[in-house]
């Protein structure tokens, strides 16, 4: 089932170190909850949906739910539907303050690709490490850019591989805006 485990130890070490460092470091004063919209920056597909997070001082929890559709001109084999399924993510993160209006978040968790549009029960899972750059121009708004790397993933879930099998960068970016309260 699991196909990718390169750099596993290194990434896990760096991620844990950063999270511990974040947790032990100077606390960020504000608790923060936000609800927003997220769009994944992918080719030949549209992946977009809702994004929620709650952050308490240095740590937080993040969840997202996105719909996955195939573009009409996307190359495909044996898949007729445009609706492919959904992507559900549940993550924990640490907060790293950069400036009063900017922070980075580093986290990990579980991504579940529920591909109901292909067949009910055809699910793929991944263990991501992600980093997020977050800009807060006002007290109630935020914009973010998030990049995630799959440390482990199910067979057949290939980030950075195109339809022809050519390899590109294995980082899945998403961007979004949030209402902060």
């Amino acid at each position, binding site marked *: 089932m699991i196909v990718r485990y390169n750099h596993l130890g290194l990434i896990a070490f760096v991620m844990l170190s950063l999270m511990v460092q974040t947790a032990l470091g100077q606390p960020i004063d504000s608790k923060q909850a936000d609800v927003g919209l997220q769009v994944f920056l992918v080719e030949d597909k549209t992946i977009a949906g809702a994004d929620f997070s709650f952050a308490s001082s240095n740590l937080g929890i993040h969840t997202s739910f996105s719909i996955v559709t195939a573009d009409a001109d996307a190359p495909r084999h*044996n898949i007729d539907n445009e609706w492919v399924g959904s992507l559900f993510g549940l993550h924990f993160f640490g907060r790293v303050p950069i400036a009063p209006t900017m922070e980075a978040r580093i986290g990990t968790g579980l991504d579940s690709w529920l591909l109901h549009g292909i067949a009910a029960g*055809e699910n793929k899972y991944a263990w991501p490490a992600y980093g997020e750059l977050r800009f807060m121009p006002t007290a109630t708004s935020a914009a973010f*850019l998030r990049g995630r790397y799959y440390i482990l993933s199910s067979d*057949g879930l290939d980030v950075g591989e195109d339809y022809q099998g050519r390899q590109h960068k294995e980082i899945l970016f998403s961007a979004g805006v949030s209402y902060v309260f």
Partner: protein
Amino acid sequence: MCSRPNCFKVASFLAAFVTISLSACQPVTLSHEGRIDFFQYRSVYVQPIALSGDAVFPDLDSATQLYLINELRTISGFRDVTGVDTLTSDSILIVDMQVDAMDDFSRQDIEYRAIASFQLIRHSGGLLARGEFSSTNIDILEAQEDALDEIALYFLKPSRL
């Protein structure tokens, strides 16, 4: 209006944001490789399902056979799925299903566990695939259908997107 340092910061961030966003689109490929060679084994004859267990009458059941045929026609890689042995199909799917009732005294419900074991063999003989799936449900029909769904999913057609 924002102050000059703030405006510069906002503009810098937005410029970086747009630049990265426009250049960051990466491919994501979702694929499934078939468990068997569906080019070689294009057709399958599904035998009537042999039921056993304490929750059903031991029988060769055509209703569950029909359910599995429909599921295989919908999602499997077989081009031709039939419930009648015409001797021309490339393979034969043999399914045995055991359905047992399990008393849950704490909930006053009866749960049913369906265990479906299957073998796919060449029409000329020889094992191609085998496996076993189970499902538990308070609805006996749901339990049986869920176990059969897993068999159909096992033979999911190869796909790539």
